[in-house]
C-alpha cells in the first residue's frame, strides 16, 4: 500500500518535471481554433478594479456572474505595476493578464503570451477600431489580445490644500513648489515618460514627439527634471491603496493618479479632485492577453468574451473611471449617463492625444531611427532618480 503511494507520488513528480521541462516558450504560440468546454478554473493577473468579485465593495461584482454562467472559478491576483505583472507571468501559473503597453510588448517578445483568435470573440467586432491592432497589442500582423479599456493618468490634488486648482503638470515638477514633501509620483520607470510629456511643451526645443521614443539627449533632460522633482517628492507610490490612504490622510496633497483611486478616496469623503492638465497626459490602453502556458484556455476565452460585453464593460468603466473599449457599453452606464462623454470614449482624436504606455526599444517606436534609449536603460535610470 505504502509503496504504491510512493510510486504514485514519484510518478506524479516525474510527470510534473517532464511537463516543466517540455513546455518551452513558443509551444503555446498558436491561437485557439474553437472555444470548448470550460476547465472550471481561471487564474488572472489584473489591475485593481478590473476583475471585482464583491470583496472590495459588495455592490461592485461582475466576477460572480461569470462564475455562475461558465463554471470557471476565478482567482484574481492584483498586479501593482507592469514589472510585477511581467514577473508574475513568467511563473506560468496564470491563464491571462490585463497588460498595459509597458509590459505587453515584453510579454510578446518573451513568448509569455499567445496570439488570440479574435474571430472567437463575438464582442470584438464592436470594440473601438482605434484600439485594435496597435503596436502594444499586436505583433507581425497577429493580434495578441482583446482591448479592455483606456484612460489617461490624471493629476489629483487635495482641494483643501492646493490653491489655486492646478491646470498644469508644472506644479509637480516645480523644485520651489509650496507643496514640497506632499507631492507624489508613480513609482515605476515608465513615469519617465510623464516627464518627457511635460517637456514636450515646457522645452519644445528638445524636439520630443513621442515620450516613449527618446534619444539620449531628450532622455537625459527628462531624467534631470525628475532628479529635481525628487527633492519635492514626499513619497513615490506603486500600491494603489497606500496612495489612496495618503491622499485621505493628507500626507500627500498632489500628484499623478488613476481615476479609480480618486473615486475610492471620494467614496471615503476625502476632499480630492482630478484634472487632466493642459499638457495632456500619459495613459494606458489595456489588453487581456492569454498566457502561452495557460491551463484553462477555454475559460480565458470565455472571460475575454464576457469582459468585453456591453453590460460588463459598463460596470468596469463606471467603477474604474475609464473609457470602455466597447462603446456599446455607453448607453448602459446609468450612474452617470454622460460617462462616455466625460472620458471621450468614442473620440478617436482624443485617444490619439493620450500617450498610451508602451515599451521603449532601441528601434524607436515612432519609426524615426535606431538611437532611442531602450527600456532597460529606463529601469536603471529610475533607480538613479530616486537616489
Amino acid at each position, binding site marked *: 500500500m505504502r509503496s504504491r503511494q510512493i510510486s504514485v507520488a514519484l510518478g506524479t513528480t516525474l510527470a510534473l518535471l517532464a511537463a516543466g521541462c517540455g513546455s518551452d516558450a513558443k509551444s503555446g504560440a498558436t491561437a485557439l481554433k474553437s472555444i470548448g468546454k470550460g476547465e472550471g478554473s481561471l487564474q488572472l493577473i489584473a489591475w485593481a478594479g478590473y476583475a471585482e468579485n464583491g470583496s472590495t465593495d459588495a455592490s461592485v461584482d461582475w466576477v460572480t456572474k461569470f462564475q455562475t454562467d461558465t463554471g470557471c472559478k476565478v482567482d484574481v491576483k492584483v498586479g501593482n505595476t507592469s514589472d510585477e505583472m511581467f514577473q508574475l507571468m513568467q511563473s506560468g501559473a496564470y491563464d491571462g493578464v490585463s497588460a498595459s503597453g509597458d509590459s505587453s510588448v*515584453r510579454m510578446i517578445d518573451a513568448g509569455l503570451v499567445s496570439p488570440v483568435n479574435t474571430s472567437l470573440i463575438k464582442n470584438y467586432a464592436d470594440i473601438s477600431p482605434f484600439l485594435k491592432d496597435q503596436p502594444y497589442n499586436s505583433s507581425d500582423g497577429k493580434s495578441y489580445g482583446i482591448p479592455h479599456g483606456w484612460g489617461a493618468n490624471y493629476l489629483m490634488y487635495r482641494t483643501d490644500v492646493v490653491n489655486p486648482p492646478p491646470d498644469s503638470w508644472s506644479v509637480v515638477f516645480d523644485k520651489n513648489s509650496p507643496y514640497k*514633501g506632499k507631492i507624489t509620483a508613480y513609482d515605476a520607470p515608465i513615469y519617465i515618460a510623464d516627464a518627457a510629456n511635460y517637456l514636450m511643451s515646457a522645452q519644445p526645443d528638445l524636439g520630443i514627439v513621442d515620450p516613449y521614443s527618446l534619444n539620449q539627449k531628450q532622455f537625459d533632460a527628462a531624467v534631470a527634471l525628475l532628479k529635481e522633482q525628487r527633492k519635492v*517628492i514626499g*513619497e513615490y507610490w506603486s500600491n494603489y491603496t497606500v496612495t489612496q490612504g495618503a491622499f485621505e490622510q493628507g*500626507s500627500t496633497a498632489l500628484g499623478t493618479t488613476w481615476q479609480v483611486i480618486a473615486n475610492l478616496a471620494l467614496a471615503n469623503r476625502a476632499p480630492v479632485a482630478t484634472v487632466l492638465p493642459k499638457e495632456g497626459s500619459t495613459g494606458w490602453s489595456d489588453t487581456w492577453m492569454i498566457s502561452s502556458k495557460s491551463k484553462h484556455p477555454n475559460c480565458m476565452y470565455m472571460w475575454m468574451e464576457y469582459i468585453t460585453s456591453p453590460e460588463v464593460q459598463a460596470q468596469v468603466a463606471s467603477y474604474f473611471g475609464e473609457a470602455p473599449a466597447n462603446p456599446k457599453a455607453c448607453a448602459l452606464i446609468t450612474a452617470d449617463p454622460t460617462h462616455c462623454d466625460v472620458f471621450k470614449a468614442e473620440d478617436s482624436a482624443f485617444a490619439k492625444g493620450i500617450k498610451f504606455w508602451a515599451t521603449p526599444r532601441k528601434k524607436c517606436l515612432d519609426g524615426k531611427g535606431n538611437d532611442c534609449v531602450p527600456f*532597460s536603460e529606463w*529601469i536603471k535610470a*529610475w*533607480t538613479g532618480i530616486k*537616489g
Partner: protein
Amino acid sequence: MTAALDSGPSTTRRRVSRFLSARPNWRLAGLLTGPALWLVVLYVGSLIALFLTSLYRLNDAGTGIVEKLGTSNYRDLLDTAVYRTIAVRTIGIAALVTVIDMIVALPIAFYIAKMATPKARTVLITAVLVPLWGSYLVKAFAWRALLGTPGGVFDKTFGASPGYGLPAVVIVLAYLWLPYMIVPIYAGLDRLPDSLLEASNDLGAGFWLTFRGVVVPMLLPAIVAGSVFTFSLSMGDYIAVELVGGPTQMIGSVVYDQFASNLPFAAAFATVPVVVMVIYLLGIRRTGALENL
C-alpha cells in the same frame, strides 16, 4: 531484547532493525540525510543559485537571461554612484538600528532579569514577545498611520512627527527588531550570578564601574548575538522602507524593483548583504557571540 527479536518470526521491520543495530554509520545516515538535504539543497542551494544568477546577465532586448558567467552586474554595482550610496545607506541604517536597540534593550533586559519580581518577570517577558505574534505588515502599516504628516496620529497629538523618510525607517525598524535584542541580553543577564554584582559592590565599585567592569564584559557575547539579528534583519528589509521611507531606497527596495525586470542584477545586489553578514559573523566569531545565538 535481541533474543526476543530473534526468536520471533522475521518481519521486514525486524530485519531492518537487526541490520541497523550492527551498523552505527547507517543509523547516523538515516537520521541525518533528511535534515542535511534540507540544509544543503534548500538553504545552501538557494544561496548558490542566487550567486550563479548574479553572474548571468540580461539580454539586450531585456526579455530574457543570457546564462553565460560574467561579472558585468558587479561592475555595474561598483561603477554606479547611486548603488554605492544605497549600499552604504543600508549598512548605515542597519548599524543605527542596532545601536538604538542596544541602548533601549539593555535597561529593559536588566530590569526584567535583576529587579523585577518573578511574577512580574513572566508578565514582562511575555509583553516583550507578544508583538512578534503580530503580522509585520500590520505593524508597518500602523506606523504609517502614526507617522504621517499632516494628519498622522503623532502629528495630531503632539503637533510634530518625523513624517515619512529615513528617520521613520530607523524608528520603525528599531521598533520591529527590539525583541530580538532584548531576549538574548535578558538570557545573558539571567546567567550572570547576582553574587558577582554584590561582590563588586562590596569591593567599593559604584553602579557605573560595576556596569562597565563586570556587566558589559560578561554580556558582550549576548549583545553581539542580538546585534546579529537586528543588523541582518534591517539589512534585508524592503517593506518598512516602502511604507514609511518616503522616497528613500535601501538595497531591498532596489532588489524588489528590479527582480522582475533584471533578475541577474537584482541577484548581484542581493549578494551584497550576504557578503556583509559573512564579514560581520567572521568578525564577531572571537567574541563567543555565536554560542549565544
